[in-house]
């Protein structure tokens, strides 16, 4: 039987499928359930300094090929987060997503949350929160500074989550790598909007939002392919992964692990097991014994 196990930055994952940040991952019970349902690891909702309520509804638009969302980074703040996880233990890797407005804020959060996080994912890419995410992460110098500050503040592995809303994502990846990031993850959502033709206005209360789901897959796959060709550190693939074939494409493009988000809304919890089983059948059918053997095979051609 082909092995689905992967190891990244010294952490073992039962399989390469990780619950993406911001999807059904508000509380510990949901993280535990994700693992029960077949996820190899979990990224939490992004945690900031202060509690945030998030935007008013509508916060999501359903499209034929995905979703546009502008949640507004709702989160309990780091204190609330620590209270929330108090007393829980997790038998799977828990990656804590953090966001801040400055390198210092990121570093502060990493320090405060190092006890509970197996690794950190830095949200340098949320496209719809003023002063956070993409607004910081579109500049290579900021990516560098934030990663560096966090690396100085924690011994835990650090993943820089990058934005595709840029001319060349590899520049952002190189900045993260140079600053000591242990991995990059890509992509966060694409800048988008939806307008209702009868209301004649943007649907989201925030007007604009981030696009995810099957429709962004070709863009995400390209980002992963470009990053994997350029960087030495591992790339975690995110963006529209909905079927096991999608997952295999990302692995072949150089992703060492994958995050699943929107597919969970489209297809339910079963998506983790379906994708895992599909990858396993593929590996066996094509004569591979481990998922790690196929990572990046399409880069050589």
């Amino acid at each position, binding site marked *: 039987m082909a092995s689905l196990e992967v190891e990244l930055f010294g952490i073992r994952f039962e399989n390469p499928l990780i619950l993406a940040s911001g*999807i059904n991952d508000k509380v510990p019970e949901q993280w535990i359930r994700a693992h029960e349902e077949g996820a190899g690891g979990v990224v939490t909702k992004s945690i900031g300094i202060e509690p945030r309520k998030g935007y008013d509804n509508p916060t999501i638009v359903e499209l034929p090929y995905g979703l546009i969302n502008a949640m507004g980074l709702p989160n309990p703040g780091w204190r609330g987060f620590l209270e929330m996880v108090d007393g829980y233990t997790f038998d799977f890797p828990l990656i804590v997503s953090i966001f801040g407005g400055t390198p210092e804020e990121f570093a502060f959060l990493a320090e405060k949350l190092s006890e509970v996080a197996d690794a950190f994912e830095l949200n340098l890419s949320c496209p719809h929160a003023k002063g956070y995410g993409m607004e910081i992460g579109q500049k290579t110098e900021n990516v560098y500074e934030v990663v560096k500050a966090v690396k100085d503040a924690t011994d835990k592995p650090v993943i820089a989550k990058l934005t595709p809303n840029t001319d060349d994502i590899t520049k952002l990846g190189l900045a993260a790598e140079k600053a000591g990031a242990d991995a990059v993850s890509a992509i966060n959502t694409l800048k988008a909007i939806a307008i209702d033709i009868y*209301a004649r206005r943007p649907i989201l209360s925030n007007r604009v939002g981030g696009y995810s789901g099957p429709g962004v897959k070709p863009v995400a796959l390209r980002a992963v392919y470009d990053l994997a060709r350029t960087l030495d550190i591992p790339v975690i693939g995110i963006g529209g992964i909905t079927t096991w074939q999608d997952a295999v494409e990302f692995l072949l493009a150089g992703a060492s692990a994958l995050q699943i988000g929107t597919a969970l809304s489209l297809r339910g919890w079963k998506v983790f097991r379906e994708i895992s089983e599909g990858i396993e059948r593929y590996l066996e059918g094509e004569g591979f014994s481990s998922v790690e053997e196929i990572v990046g095979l399409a880069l050589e051609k």
Partner: protein
Amino acid sequence: MLKRVELVETWEVAKDVRAFRFDERLKFRPGQFLMVWLPGAGEKPFSLAGEDIIVVKRVGPFTSRLFELGEGDYVWIRGPYGNGFEARGKRVALVAGGIGIPPLYALARKGGGAFEHVTLIYGARSKDELALMDVEDYVDELIITTDDGSAGRKGFPTDVLAERKGEFDQVYACGPEPMLRAVLRVMDYEKVQISAERYMKCGIGVCGSCNLGKYLVCRDGPVFEGPQLRGLL
């Protein structure tokens, strides 16, 4: 996908409670809900009382805005979402509290054929808050309770349920959380389906706002089997 629908009829069914009928007949299961968008005012979830009806209590700015709308006005909907009740049992009780009536009204109307005998136990704070509509036509027995005794029996619907629970194969409940907890305790979490409520935003299992332990009310619910809720409600 969001869809604009036109209101074809609206009427008052109780104090601060109105019914809204739109020009689109939805395929739905009682217990399922819609997200309703009023451009500029927001978007909120409402349980379907029928294939083309929601019943709404005025509680804040969004519902106040909705109450200003009448025939010919538009609302935008997406859904139905969630799982809905599973019609099961022959002699059943529907236990409704306050504005928890719409999904049970829908169940009485739509699920009626599957049941042999339906008892609706419906409680409200006072007489003028009872949103009965024509539910009497769809149940075999109607028991009213009010907190103040202004209609029916003074007390809670769960008082009635506690006395008569032995009669029912299945109990269906929707209402304020203290009532739901009481129903679960009375039934010892067995033979009961509960339509639960949590603060819902996206409605489609993304934002995670409506979690109830490991469940999401929008996706795993809003209807839960009693045993699922042990330790949670």
